[in-house]
């Protein structure tokens, strides 16, 4: 049993038809660490975290969460593991048929079988933690701005005090100031809970703010993995090109006709 690592991916492959997305991903995430996965669009960042959550099944390879193999696990067992995780989706993915507090409390009511009144109390507490007033609790998702939706999504992700949290492009579509606010919230929420987090993004300011370690995904492989402190002198031309946002370099954008 491995207690040092929260998540270990070993030689994970995943293809959709002929398109190979993950081509032997090896990635270790230590407990309590904040890992950020960077990489261009379509390099398999989302597929990587969907594999860890059991939303997609890898074609081959092994993924362990808390030392437990999750590839090939039954739906019911996977639900138990997911009960210990939270996720902030790119578009927040709030349930539009439920109001804000019901959204935040969803995992507590449906997953952990809490009473509605108790769950509501926790939901309002979590909303406060992400800087939203209790008045927001009775509104519906379509009444909120993009930044507020992200905050609600964050509150929902942390509502059940998960040990492992995923953030899928948390700052995409937000203005720079709101991005910074969300980054700060992510940082503080994760350190309050003492959770492990895996973030995918291509926003470099986010990386510098959130990350302890950074992994870069390119053509289905992890090509660099190290501390965020070393990212500026990684000595890796791919990483250099990406973090400085240059069009020319070893990474050539594939333009399909």
């Amino acid at each position, binding site marked *: 049993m491995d207690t040092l690592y929260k998540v270990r991916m070993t030689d994970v492959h995943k293809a959709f038809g002929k398109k190979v997305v993950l081509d032997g991903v090896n990635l270790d995430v230590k407990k309590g660490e904040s890992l950020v996965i960077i990489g261009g669009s379509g390099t398999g960042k989302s597929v990587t975290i969907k594999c860890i959550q059991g939303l997609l099944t890898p074609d081959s390879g092994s993924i362990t969460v808390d030392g437990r193999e999750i590839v090939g696990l039954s739906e019911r067992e996977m639900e138990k593991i997911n009960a210990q995780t939270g996720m902030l989706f790119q578009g927040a993915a709030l*349930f539009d048929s439920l109001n804000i507090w019901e959204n935040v409390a969803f995992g507590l009511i449906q997953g952990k079988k809490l009473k509605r009144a108790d769950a509501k109390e926790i939901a309002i507490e979590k909303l406060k933690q992400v800087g939203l007033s209790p008045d927001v609790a009775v509104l519906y998702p379509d009444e909120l701005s993009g930044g507020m939706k992200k905050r609600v999504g964050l509150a929902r992700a942390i509502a059940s005090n998960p040990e492992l949290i995923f953030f899928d492009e948390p700052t995409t579509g937000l203005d720079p100031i709101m991005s910074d606010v969300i980054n700060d919230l992510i940082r503080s929420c994760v350190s309050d809970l003492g959770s492990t987090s895996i973030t995918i993004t291509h926003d470099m300011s986010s990386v510098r703010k959130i990350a302890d370690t950074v992994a870069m995904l390119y053509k289905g492989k992890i090509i660099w993995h190290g501390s965020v402190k070393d990212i500026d002198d990684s000595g890796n031309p791919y990483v250099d090109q990406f973090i400085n946002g240059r069009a020319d370099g070893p990474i050539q954008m594939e333009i399909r006709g």
Partner: protein
Amino acid sequence: MNIFAPVGRVFIAFLESTGRLARFTLKTVSHCFRPPFYFRALAGQMIEIGFYSLPVVALTTMFSGMVIALQSYSGLSTLSSEGVVASVVELTITRELGPVMAALMVAGRVGAAMAAELGTMRVTEQIDALTTLSTNPFKYLIVPRVLAGVLMLPVLVLIGDIIGIYGGWLICVYKLDFNGTNFLRNVWNFMQAIDIYSGMTKAAVFGFIVTLLGCYNGYHSRGGAEGVGAATTNAVVASSILILISNYWLTELFFAK
């Protein structure tokens, strides 16, 4: 050789989608019998399908009953028998038109709405969000809808039968100057138990088809707004065709000698 490639491709695509639908059906049915059950969601869907479909079902069955009375009188008046019109109305409404009309209306109203709702939830990642909140989307979204369809469509058909026969009665009494009491007595004497329960069995099957295809198309929709639109169209067209085809075979099953 080139002629065979596209034919083969279409055939393989057909087998693929048939297999996927079969797996989806089995998964849905098996989840119907495994806890947790979401009774709140089931009640909501039963109201949506059973109660809110009443006006359209009432209107269509009523006019069906009216037109059958009128048509059978004009076609059969040489026999000059009031009893014939009453029995034709009773037979066609309870055995065929009641279930088929109600199912087609529910397909247009409820099947389309389910495909659009689940499709939107799919493309905005709300279905993935359910999984990450350790709630099984089959149990939470699909089972309540399919069960509500199977339970409520027979009820709708029973009500539709009464209203359809009432439509026939209206025409007979106010247009054809028949005796209303005789009409009802003829209907009652002619009616057999199998008329009613065959119609209600059909309704349960149609309810399953409509809700299952609505959920299936929504759950598997891809590619944004366009994909959701296609899912909605497919749900209505496929379920309408399947209703009419299975109606024939159910009639054969019940009445062929």
